[in-house]
């Protein structure tokens, strides 16, 4: 078997942090090559290097025995390397057939668009995939799963030699997954190489010939799938001990303050029930797309749940809007702090006071000195590194920006704080600082729901760990029960597959 693509010593770093360090893997024609690893292990970086979205700092890409510089997606396309993106990129106004062939319509006489051939070809591809979709259907009416399938159809319609599928099954039903796998097997028989990225280990089992494990940007192992058990894969994925220690203060855990009972939102999550106690930090773990943020958004009144009940201090709470949630003592620190959390060009004082403006405006007139006093309090309490409350948020480091967002919500004096990936993209020193702050807040009696994809963070900070998978709460582990292996197994659905 000849290697179709050979990765030799690829490295890529962003601002001194290695996203990928000296990775060498060879991908053969006619095989399905699974790529596994935790969030942030370097899988996406590898995909981007292969598709020419980014270029490596070091190392070379060898295609068909020749060293290639893949400078842009078009070049990758010419070499037969096609990627299916995790985020569907569809044209909502066009039909299914036109989406499949966007940018490369089949041509009829006089270089015109050959509509009948386009519809027929699209229909054939969809049928191969086992998707019941008429080529003339407008894409506007399709949900995420259909759009994902459309993305697959798009990739299949071009003559790919290496097809990269980044979490293709995340939004698919079991039937659709089976159809997809049948298609993948057909492609393999035709000699196409498939790079398959998935968090679901049972899928890796079902489809992969070879498994490559990445961890912290490094290549850990490449072995035939038949030789690897789930347990071994998980062990290779995790592989590290809890090296970074988090200063968790012991807090007194009090009464139940928040109860969530059978909360559901159609097509997003269902049967979500848990309770949070005063002074408790509860980690919410799971892979990206498991529905963790969606649950938080529903509790905070951003998205309307379809059913279930939420009680705060035993009293029914209907989340109608973030305003209503704030009034009941809930606060939510969103995942994308830059987009959702802050007004970048404005000062720390203005940002910190955004959620409590009415309190600072007696008689309808904003008193800037109150804003500044509030900001000064938090600069001190959270140790925000800033020259003055008047400094623009844009000029602060990531961690300090995160603390400003935290100030904004703390200003409302909440009793329950939902933190969504609070240390995403901040450096190690700031991270410890944020952890110290969180722990300190819990010790003061705040209840914290901590959503995080970083296992050491979840395990180090939480009194209890909840694990979500595919929109459901699949495990609840006490601090002593919660190990990396157990959380990953629950998040990846290993136990279920073994049973």
């Amino acid at each position, binding site marked *: 078997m000849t290697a179709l693509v050979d990765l030799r010593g690829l490295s890529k770093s962003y601002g001194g942090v290695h996203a990928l360090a000296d990775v060498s893997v060879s991908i053969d024609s006619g095989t399905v090559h699974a790529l596994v690893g935790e969030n942030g292990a370097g899988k996406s970086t590898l995909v981007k290097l292969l598709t020419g979205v980014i270029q490596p700092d070091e190392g070379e890409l060898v295609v068909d025995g020749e060293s290639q510089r893949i400078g842009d997606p078009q070049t990758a396309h010419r070499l037969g390397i096609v990627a299916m993106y995790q985020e569907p990129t*569809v*044209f909502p106004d066009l039909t299914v057939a036109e989406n499949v062939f966007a*940018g490369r319509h089949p041509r009829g006489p006089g270089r015109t668009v050959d509509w009948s051939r386009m519809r027929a070809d699209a229909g054939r591809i969809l049928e191969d995939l086992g998707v019941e979709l008429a080529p003339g*259907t407008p894409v506007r*009416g*399709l*949900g995420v799963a259909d759009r994902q399938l459309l993305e697959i159809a798009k990739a299949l319609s071009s003559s790919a030699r290496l097809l990269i599928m980044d979490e293709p099954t995340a939004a698919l039903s079991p*039937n659709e997954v089976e159809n997809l796998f049948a298609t993948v097997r057909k492609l393999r028989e035709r000699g196409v190489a498939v790079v398959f990225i998935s968090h679901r280990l049972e899928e890796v089992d079902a489809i992969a010939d070879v498994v490559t494990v990445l961890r912290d940007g490094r290549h850990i192992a490449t072995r035939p799938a038949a030789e690897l058990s789930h347990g071994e894969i998980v062990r290779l994925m995790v592989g590290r001990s809890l090296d970074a220690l988090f200063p968790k203060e012991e807090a007194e855990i009090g009464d139940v303050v928040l109860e969530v009972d059978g909360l559901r939102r159609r097509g997003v999550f269902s049967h979500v029930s848990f309770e949070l106690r005063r002074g408790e930090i509860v980690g919410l773990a799971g892979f990206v797309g498991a529905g963790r943020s969606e649950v938080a958004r529903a509790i905070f009144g951003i998205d309307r749940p379809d059913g279930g009940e939420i009680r705060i201090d035993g009293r029914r709470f209907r989340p109608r809007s973030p305003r209503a949630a704030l009034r009941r003592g809930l606060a939510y620190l969103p995942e994308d702090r830059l987009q959702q959390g802050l007004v970048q060009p404005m000062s720390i004082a203005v940002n910190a006071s955004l959620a409590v403006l009415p309190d600072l405006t007696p008689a309808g007139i904003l008193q800037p000195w109150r804003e500044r006093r509030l900001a000064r309090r938090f600069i001190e309490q959270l140790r925000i590194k800033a020259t003055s409350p008047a400094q623009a948020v844009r000029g602060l480091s990531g961690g300090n920006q995160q603390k400003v967002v935290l100030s904004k919500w703390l200003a409302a004096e909440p009793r329950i704080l939902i933190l969504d990936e609070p240390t995403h993209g901040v450096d190690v020193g700031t991270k410890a600082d944020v952890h110290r702050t969180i722990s300190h807040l819990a010790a003061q009696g705040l209840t914290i729901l901590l959503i995080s994809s970083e296992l050491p963070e979840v395990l180090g900070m939480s009194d209890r760990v909840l694990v979500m998978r595919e929109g459901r709460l699949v495990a609840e582990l006490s601090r002593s029960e919660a190990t990396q292996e157990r959380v990953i197994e629950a998040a990846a659905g290993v136990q279920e597959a073994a049973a």
Partner: protein
Amino acid sequence: MNTRRFVSAQALAEAVVRLRELGIFVALAFTILFFSVRATNFMTADNWRDIATDVSMVVVVAVGQTMVVLTRNIDLSVGSIVGLTAYVSSNTLADHHGLPIVVTALIAMGIGALCGLGNGLLVAVGKIPAIIATLATLAIYRGVLFEVTHGQNVFASQLPQSFLDLAAKKPLGVPSLAWIAIGVALVGAALLRWAPWARDFYAVGSNPDAARLAGIPVARRVMTAFVISGALAGLGGFMFAARFASVDAVAGRGFELDVVTAVVIGGVNVFGGSGSVLGAVLGALLVTTIQDGFTLMRVDEFWKIFFNGAAIVVAVTVDALITKRVQEALRRRRRAELLTAHERAAET
């Protein structure tokens, strides 16, 4: 069983588009009925010729505007381009009586295309939002016109008779300017259906990022749309000169409002990605007929402009509501279906 359901989903979406066009048709019928009762001289051959001529100009420019709007942009400079090319057309003919009229039209279209290229460069290369870029060129092209005219008018008496006859001629009983409009509309509709590059306009307007990922040269397509819009505005200017004979520096002022109104009430989505030439033509017919009726009834200028503005608001609102409803209806079906599939799979 499922397939049948999806076919009906497709049919539903198509029916909505047809219903939208039918809506303008009905509105047009009512308008004609209303004015034929209320406005004297409305149902006369002369008036219909006037309407046909006016509609023709709007249609020609609206076909170009449709292409620009499809790419999620807008061209506000068309009124100024019409004025500029109208003056150049009649001035050229006044100076060179022997020049073939077709050549004059081509010159007007060439100048229009250049203006359109300017717009396209500002938007696609300069990354200036189209509404600002073409607002700027609306002023710039008008300024150029003032400079070119030096305050002088071209009068009908200076023009060759063959040109003056153009607007009056009626081959097969239809004004010649209307023939031009019919030709432009047919070619425009054909391009948007059959030409791969014109088909890309829909993709670009529907999701610019996805278009880029699909390998569509987005900047070039946007430029093409603006150049076509400019060239057709140039042709519109030539028609303007033929229609009014006397051209001055304020010719075509405010014309962009008529064109944008026609396109928008014709169902071309202002957020790009959907719309048709047929819709724009129907929109142009409705706008022009109402303007004409108002003029006959000696309605205030205020109401004429007010109507244009109100029509845009109504059309955009109706379209937004329709889009939302259709999307919800389609999604509900599909979701219910997937959920049952999920449950079926869970049981087995």
